[in-house]
């Protein structure tokens, strides 16, 4: 018989691996942060310096133009971040012989999906009602709820990342003029920080 300490460690590891999605890639968090900072920078440029946008010379952007661009930029950033997370986590899972589609990863994605999808629709409603100043706050809040909810099925850092987003979301609601700034902090800087933390703790 093996040593009892080893057997207990074995039991604990099996319990964790069967319930938690442990191959979530930290590098994808870092990348998501970089995309978000780039997107926020570009938005800032478009919103506050509309007359000097490089893509169309000195012609100033119409409001509708700006709206369309922001929407495209937002969707593009989302797609880039999600696909980085998907491919890098899949690759990492293959490295540890952990399947990407497992009951654990399904539970993680399910619990993340509802708040985030609702948040997406809510932001469309805000857009539709021209309440733009609350969009960054709403994105941060719904994403934060999703992260805190799904944290029990994945690495522990996700819970703290969720609380950070919730904090910035609330502050952004009180200071809507600085919405873009808090959005860049939450989605950009803190994704970077937690991604790096996860990389150093779990992937090296």
């Amino acid at each position, binding site marked *: 018989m093996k040593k009892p300490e080893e057997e207990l460690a*074995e039991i604990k590891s099996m*319990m964790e691996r069967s319930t938690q999605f442990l191959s979530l890639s930290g590098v994808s968090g870092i990348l998501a942060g970089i995309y978000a900072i780039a997107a926020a920078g570009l938005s800032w440029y478009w919103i506050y310096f509309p007359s000097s946008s490089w893509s169309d010379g000195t012609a100033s952007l119409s409001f509708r133009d700006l709206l369309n661009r922001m929407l495209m930029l937002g969707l593009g950033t989302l797609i880039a971040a999600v696909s980085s997370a998907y491919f890098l986590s899949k690759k990492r899972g293959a490295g540890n012989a952990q399947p990407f589609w497992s009951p654990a990863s399904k539970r993680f994605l399910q619990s993340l999906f509802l708040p985030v999808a609702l948040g997406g629709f809510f932001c469309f409603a805000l857009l539709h009602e021209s309440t733009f100043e609350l969009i960054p706050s709403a994105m941060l809040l719904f994403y934060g709820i999703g992260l805190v909810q799904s944290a029990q099925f994945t690495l522990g850092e996700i819970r703290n990342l969720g609380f950070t987003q919730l904090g910035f979301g609330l502050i952004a609601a009180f200071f809507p003029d600085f919405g873009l700034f808090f959005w860049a902090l939450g989605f950009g800087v803190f994704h970077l920080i937690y991604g790096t933390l996860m990389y150093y703790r779990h992937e090296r």
Partner: protein
Amino acid sequence: MSVEIQEGYDKAFDNVLRLRIMSILMVNIRYEFNSFKSLLQVTDGNLASHLKHLEHAEFLRVEKSFAGRKPLTSYLATEKGRKAFQAYLQFLEQLIYLNKVY
């Protein structure tokens, strides 16, 4: 070690694969055959024989269903299995404790 403890020890958990299977079923309400296979990285035959062993011991029960046309075989821990597993955990803790004392 001179002290003999047998309480809580169960031959069903002698095999590491069976121990792993029961560990998974303790924290998942039900777990599918294919999920076991990919998490444990074992062959069908090997897995099936150990699952059968645990089923005979009445530590788990089988639930067959369909996902569309695909048959799904899921496993659930029974009350007996849960008790035996907990007793086994206590047995391990005792062993560790005794190893420290003696």
